[in-house]
């Protein structure tokens, strides 16, 4: 990709566009590059966790720590690929896949009871007790036909989310 501080060439843009399965337009990719360079303060070619956390809106998000594991140290191509799930053109399956990857932090293709519990804990903090969290999760899993010891796969996630609407869209500002 070359030095971050240089401009993107047409080849670079097309390469990135292909990598993210055409979910972003070329203008959006240029905008994302400007943003990437803005966040990557010393032109290292990736954005460090600290630099992500310097965006207050991101740091305030309850999911930021877990999300950092997914985005820390990504180069520009992977950065765009990550964000492509939030494009208006992305399908529900692509969005569900990202959600699955978020839960499956060790990347072994299976989401355990613990994974789901951890995310619930991030989202609810100290406002629900641990016991209550486990209870709720166990009960809802049972109602959906799973047990506490089940490992959910991507297919399970697709079944759970179904084909219903998933509102997960971010607009890339284009100057």
């Amino acid at each position, binding site marked *: 990709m070359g030095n971050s501080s240089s401009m993107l060439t047409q080849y670079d843009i097309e390469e990135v566009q292909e990598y993210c399965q055409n979910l972003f337009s070329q203008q959006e990719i240029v905008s994302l590059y400007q943003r990437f360079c803005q966040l990557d303060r010393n032109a290292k070619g990736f954005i460090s966790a600290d630099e992500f956390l310097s965006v207050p809106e*991101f740091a305030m998000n309850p*999911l930021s720590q877990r999300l950092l594991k997914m985005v820390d140290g990504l180069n520009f191509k992977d950065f765009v690929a990550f964000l492509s799930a939030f494009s208006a053109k992305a399908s529900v399956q692509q*969005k569900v896949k990202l*959600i699955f990857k978020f839960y499956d932090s060790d990347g072994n293709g299976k989401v355990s009871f613990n994974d789901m519990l951890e995310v619930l804990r991030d989202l609810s903090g100290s*406002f629900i007790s641990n016991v209550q969290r486990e209870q709720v999760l166990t009960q809802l899993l049972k109602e959906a036909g799973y047990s506490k010891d089940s490992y959910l796969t991507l297919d399970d996630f697709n079944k759970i989310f179904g084909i219903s609407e998933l509102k997960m869209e971010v607009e890339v500002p284009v100057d």
Partner: protein
Amino acid sequence: MNSSEGKLKSSSSELDLDRPNIEDYLPSGSSIQEPHGKLRLRDLLDISPALTEAAGAIVDDSFTRCFKSNPPELWNWNVYLFPLWCCGVVFRALVLTIGWIIFLSCFIPVHFLLKGNDNLRKKMERALVELICSFFVASWTGVVKYHGPRPSMRPKQVFVANHTSMIDFIILEQMTAFAVIMQKHPGWVGLLQSTILESVGCIWFNRSEAKDREIVTRKLREHSQGADNNPLLIFPEGTCVNNQYSVMFKKGAFELGCTVCPIAIKYNKIFVDAFWNSRKQSFTMHLLQLMTSWAVVCDVWYLEPQNLRPGETPIEFAERIRDIISVRAGLKKVPWDGYLKYSRPSPKHRERKQQSFAESVLRGLELEEK
């Protein structure tokens, strides 16, 4: 049936954060999932609102926008204008040098010889500081339009202005010798601060020291009560912002029991981007950049003095003044504390979101049990 409101409204006693409720500003509320009817597994696993917010912040956020400097426009670089520009730079450097010579040759004798006669010395030093500031402004080919009645020297009043660069101070100082409260800088700027600016009565603070705030508040109060101190100029944003947005005002200037006179400063971006991005440039480089651009054109509005209204808290007062200044200078308001440049947000914000989510889950559960 549970009918309590999920969203948290903080009482005004939460002032230890030194800022009003961010939730009132941010367009979120999207972390709250409203389960319709029974709570299902899907509702619990659906983290798309929070994920979307995080991704939105990664793609664009209103805080980083405040500190974005504009790349210089290159409309004015061509063969015809170049020699003219070179002459301009040389001329300006000359003007500045002459200014310093005149200033130092008057200031040093006045400062030492008139040690006994304080009143006269102060008057002359004020006039001289105003003079050197005028020379500075001339060295950038500054075209400053002042609107509104000039500040008068009265006790129990402070002036507040939006902050774009340290040159704000120089531009205002050439008209009126203000006493200013500033961060102590290293290098030649620090030297200037401790010698010349002492004479107009400046107050120093150190951002990194925690206890510093109380000391500074006390000094501010003492200064504003004194009758023959120079009028106090404060930049309540606490940091330089890029003249298109305004960040939240710190309440320190608004709880001194004084009249607050707002000043709005707006730079014309066509000629130069006067924003001093202290993370990217040292002040020396910034000044050089100003001296080598065509002009610094700006408008300064002295606005109507305001007093604390009965029943108004200092934070509400600060926001009201920020409104007045932002409207006059065409700035967009953002709900961020400028010091977030140097530190992380308080965990309270995350906890509020967690509380909303927890409450909506518990509500969904209660619906189930009915």
